[in-house]
């Protein structure tokens, strides 16, 4: 094999790899990335039942209900609309009323959001970034809240 052929074969192999990886990446980004929504965005976005999304907002006051065993129901609100969320499992340590949370899961046919993971803030000065941005955009967030 001459130098030119060798180089060509390496380049062809490299391009084949890149092509395969690009294809996979695009497919995966289309299929597997989950979008973030706040409750008020949902009507405009037309999210299908079963489609995986992340839903963020504040835990609405007085809506936390502990059901059978480890199942919990609560509402996530952005102060304009709220969505009922069902979750089975252990809630994060800092899950409280009127705290920012991000839940991940999908809507059931009955319109209840079934979450398989719930993320809350890590410490008292942290609000999930998406939730903070979303609330700011809706004008219900004051910068001083974060301090």
């Amino acid at each position, binding site marked *: 094999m001459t*130098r030119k052929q060798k180089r060509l074969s390496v380049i062809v*192999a*490299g391009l084949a790899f890149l092509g395969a990886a690009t294809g996979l*990446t695009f497919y995966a*980004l289309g*299929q597997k990335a989950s*979008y973030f929504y706040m409750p008020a965005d949902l009507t405009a976005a037309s999210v299908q039942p079963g489609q995986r999304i992340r839903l963020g907002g504040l835990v609405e006051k007085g809506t936390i209900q502990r059901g059978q065993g480890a199942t919990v129901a609560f509402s996530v609100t952005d102060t304009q609309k709220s969505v009922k969320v069902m979750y089975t499992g252990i809630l994060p340590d800092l899950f409280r009323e009127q705290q920012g949370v991000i839940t991940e899961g999908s809507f059931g046919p009955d319109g209840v959001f079934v979450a398989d993971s719930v993320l809350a803030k890590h410490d008292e000065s942290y609000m999930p970034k998406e939730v903070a941005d979303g609330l700011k955009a809706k004008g219900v967030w004051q910068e001083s809240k974060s301090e």
Partner: protein
Amino acid sequence: MVETGHFALVLSFALALVQTLVPLFGARTGNPRMMAVGGPVAVTGFALTAFSFAALATAYASSDFSVASVWENSHSLQPLIYKITGTWGNHEGSMLLWVLILTFFGALVAVFGGNLPATLRANVLAVQGAIGATFFLFILTTSNPFARLNPAPIEGRDLNPILQDLGLAVHPPLLYLGYVGFSICFSFSVAALIEGRIDASWARWVRPWTLVAWMFLTGGIAMGSYWAYYELGWGGFWFWDPVENASFMPWLAGTALLHSAIVMEKRSALKIWTLLLAILTFSLSLLGTFLVRSGVLTSVHAFATDPTRGVFILCILTLFIGGSLALFALRSSRLTAGGLFHPISREGALVLNNLFLTTATATVLVGTLYPLALEAVTGDKISVGAPFFDLTFGPLMLPLLAIVPFGPLLAWKRGDVFAAAQRLMAAFALALAAVLVTALFVDGASVFAALGVGLAVWLVCGALTDLAVKSGAGSVAPAIMLRRFAGLPRSVFGTALAHLGLGLTLLGIVGTLSFGAEKILSMRAGETIELSGHTLRFEGLYPAQGPNYSEDRGRFALLGADGSTISEITSAKRFYPVRQMTTTESGIKTIGFSQLYLSLGDEATDGSVVVRLWWKPLVTLIWGGGLVMMAGAAMSLMDRRLRVGAPSRRRKPTGAVPSAGLP
């Protein structure tokens, strides 16, 4: 002490500038005295940075709350060990640790690089100094750890409770030793580009540094993964979190570099590629530093969000990545191209390894940066998690893992796949047996799980086959084989151990993901929970008091077949009053290589407690494999050819035998 520390830091910055300019100028003009300046300056710079770091650590240890950083991240009631580790449990301190390690590596080059060509050494130290100077400037202008508060507060605000853990004491230093260790490879590459000269001996100098950095990075990632596993209480070992990816990308690229440097050293091929990889690896380390430190990501690691810091690091990133790549574009054509080789050969296998690893790195990079880019462009917020990486990273890694055992068995220049395959027959048979046994005899095993176990066994047996073949198994008498085995070069053991470790990690991942079980139950004292053949009885909640927290300990008894208590597992809900924060301390019981993992939830009004119990088969192998990989790297480092800075030592006499005691 604090002001002296600050002053030492300013001096280090000045020295880093000297270390950049004087040797660089000396190397250009061929002035040996100016070139020689780099060494002593690098050592002094390290000493000053170490002093500065010690000053900060002292302020932390003695709870000097007049220092803003101490006030924000420490408390007088914290145990001493967490006061000290808190030094790097915050943005300012961790950046100081970053430069401390950077100057440490610079000093190592100065001390052990005596046999490097003078101009190369000068240029390497100059580049190292330049990286140092920018980061010193970053610390001094945007993240001064020594800033004072007046009046001094009486009490501090406590370290983030989830960072009050021994894992934190070890994880950042190890990770940084890895991250920053790659700066040496970067500096060598840029120095080679400045000189416009590169040869096989360059690879011989760079390889030990790559090995050292890779070894620590492996340890850092494994430690971080284990910390997240037991401390966050979710029982996951890898979340594909951008911050984790930030450390994983340099690891993947560094692994590719490790392999391509072998080709360059042995066969003087792939020179330009190796050089580019070295630049890319450290660029990914810098990118990682940017992602973690700039606050573009919110996570445990983003201690504070200050836009000026992000912009500053972005500038550093642009300067070094852009600068080195521009230099590469301008100069790489000057470097002589490498030798020829047949595609079916050890070199060919290593090239294939590099193709897989770099493409995999690219998919991780896309998965990490795409959400950021999309949000910046369209405002859409997406999250890219495990499903994305399963679909992109997974298909790239699986074929790579399948061909790993072939590589070391192929000869240089022209290999014979069939001969290698013949030698691997035993390993293949064992792997096949593992697949069949798993599929037929393990309950609930899917086809993928069985194949995963088979692949792991294939990797482990392949590594052992390599050792057996190289010590002449089957062709020589056992005694000779044993002697040959003992006489194998350390780097052969290194390769085998690293590949074996990879197999163990894979086995751990497959075991945990495929055969694990979990149960969530609301329990009262006296009730039992049963999972995968293990029975636990909840003994009740017991309040306890720690130095700076109070906790409710849930005690669980692990019951034997006859109902007697074999051992106890404790999981706790801790409350840290200073930060008003609750953390969960998971309860873990290791049984063989597997673990029972227990996490306590909230107490309900009726006195019952939500308990989440996992059975994690073979989970410890995930990190155990990492340790074996580290051992492999250490073994390779002990190879006399590769001992740091050793190339010329062989020529020295081996030292006179002391004869005083002999007649």
